[in-house]
């Protein structure tokens, strides 16, 4: 073949490759995105048996949990999840904002270089290790040193323990996101505030944190999602008692722990597997809704703050 012919042949081959690969990519994308729908549909279909027996309302608001009799009230588990998540966020958020601000605004550069990766190391530690640590350290701490001040008796296995363990788990997530956000705020803004005679803290409080607010909320959302769904660490320290917690020292039984603990019994009791799938569906819906709502709030915030 002469030169022109071979170039044209090669050209056709290249175009063919391009087209093939773009189809492949399209398929990969479609398949992976459709997982969202598939999960929702799959979980729903498997929840149908238990939904036939008890309505949505009963399932969500009833506290009666007697699988042998076919009674499934998820209210205690939903409350357990909410309690543990709330406690973890209340502990983690202020600590993390303060730390992130320290790392970006105040720390001398030597310390900054060590601190940031150091906090990230925490993010790699598997949840089960946190659970182990919780059992070894937090439970005795609560039982012997904290609870006696407040209640008569506590085994230490409580939503407080779950909240503390969860909080430590989500520290690196929140700190790293907020640090990133603070880092992208231009120095000019801080300079402008300083030039007007503001102290460093005033600049941080009134200008930097204000500008970083959307980012902080995004970090919060991510952290809450993670806390909701965490299974093993919480399972090990929460007490796993199907009652609605009334104080932080009460045991709790978050939804993920419920699913994980009863997986073994699932097949032997009628409707139990469907009920557990319903629990998974509940989790899925809560997180989905949460994601969408927070996006809307974020978008509105950004429109208000920016140009």
């Amino acid at each position, binding site marked *: 073949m002469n030169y022109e012919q071979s170039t044209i042949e090669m050209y056709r081959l290249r175009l063919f490759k391009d087209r093939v690969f773009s189809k492949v990519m399209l398929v990969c994308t479609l398949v992976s995105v459709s997982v969202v729908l598939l999960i929702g549909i799959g979980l729903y279909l498997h929840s149908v048996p238990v939904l036939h027996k008890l309505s949505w309302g009963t399932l969500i608001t009833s506290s009666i949990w007697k699988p042998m009799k076919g009674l499934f009230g998820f209210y205690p588990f939903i409350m357990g999840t909410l309690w543990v998540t709330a406690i973890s966020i209340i502990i983690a958020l202020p600590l993390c904002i303060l730390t992130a601000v320290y790392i970006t605004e105040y720390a001398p550069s030597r310390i900054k270089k060590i601190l940031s990766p150091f906090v990230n190391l925490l993010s790699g530690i598997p949840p089960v290790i946190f659970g182990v640590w919780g059992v070894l350290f937090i439970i005795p701490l609560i039982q012997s040193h904290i609870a006696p001040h407040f209640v008569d008796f506590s085994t230490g296995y409580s939503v407080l323990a779950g909240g503390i363990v969860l909080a430590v788990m989500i520290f690196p997530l929140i700190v790293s996101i907020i640090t990133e956000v603070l880092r992208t705020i231009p120095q000019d803004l801080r*300079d*402008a505030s300083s030039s*007007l*005679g503001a102290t460093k803290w005033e600049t941080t409080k009134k200008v930097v944190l204000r500008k970083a607010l959307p980012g902080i909320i995004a970090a919060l959302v991510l952290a809450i999602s993670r806390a909701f769904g965490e299974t093993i660490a919480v399972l090990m320290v929460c007490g796993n008692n199907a009652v609605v917690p009334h104080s932080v020292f009460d045991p709790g039984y978050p939804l993920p722990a419920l699913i994980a603990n009863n997986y073994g019994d699932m097949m032997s009791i009628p409707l139990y597997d469907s009920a557990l799938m319903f629990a998974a569906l509940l989790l899925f819906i809560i997180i989905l809704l949460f994601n969408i709502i927070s996006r809307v709030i974020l978008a509105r915030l950004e429109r208000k*703050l920016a140009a």
Partner: protein
Amino acid sequence: MYQEVLQTESVAAKKTHISVKGLNVQIGSQHILKDINIDIPDKKVTSIIGPSGCGKTTLLKTFNRLLDTSSDVKITGKVLVDGENIYDPGIEVTRIRKKMGLLSQRPCPLPMSIYDNVAYGPRIHGTRKKAVLDELVERQLRATGLWEEVKDRLNASANRLSIGQQQRLCLARGLAVSPEIILGDESTSALDPVSTHIIENLFIKLKEKYSIVLVTHILRQAARISDYIIFVYMGKVIEAGPAEQVLQDPQEELTKQYVKGYIT
């Protein structure tokens, strides 16, 4: 405008607002400013000119101690403002900064409404009464010619303004804390010619009440509005004097070469 440049008032006869004596600045291992000795005259427009990277902005930042925020900075020497050395260990930094208003290169409105931007400084320094703040905000917005344009939307986000308006807002914000000196770091280089013209005129009007120090790399701008020019090259002050003299009849060789483009 050209008339004002031709005024050859001898600077020594007027009051000096800032007096720099033996200033040396080192950032990291680089010796940025070498043995600077200059006087900034009171209530005049002084321009600091020179090629990029030779220390003009660093010099400006030593005036309001903004250099303190950079890491690894060593400063020796004195900067006397109204006779007071601002690098004295006992000095309250925020008070010094309040005396100086800074206008940076890119307008940076604070993330709040137009009203809150101007009121930010006074609020920090203790002014709380709404009536007082209202009057202050209006006064400074009028002084920078923004009032008519924004009076109906004082609560809108400052980011909605055009760049020229934002820079004027930053100027109003800086004036609201009643400074004595205005520092401008290439403050018109991000603006279009019309906005630049407006801001330059503002500087000329403001020198009645404030001393103005501007860093610029645009020789024509220096010629248009300055009374006094300082030429900095490689961290050293090469020449300083009345604007017309430095531009038309420079004494030093380096100055001659730098302003060559302008003269011809």
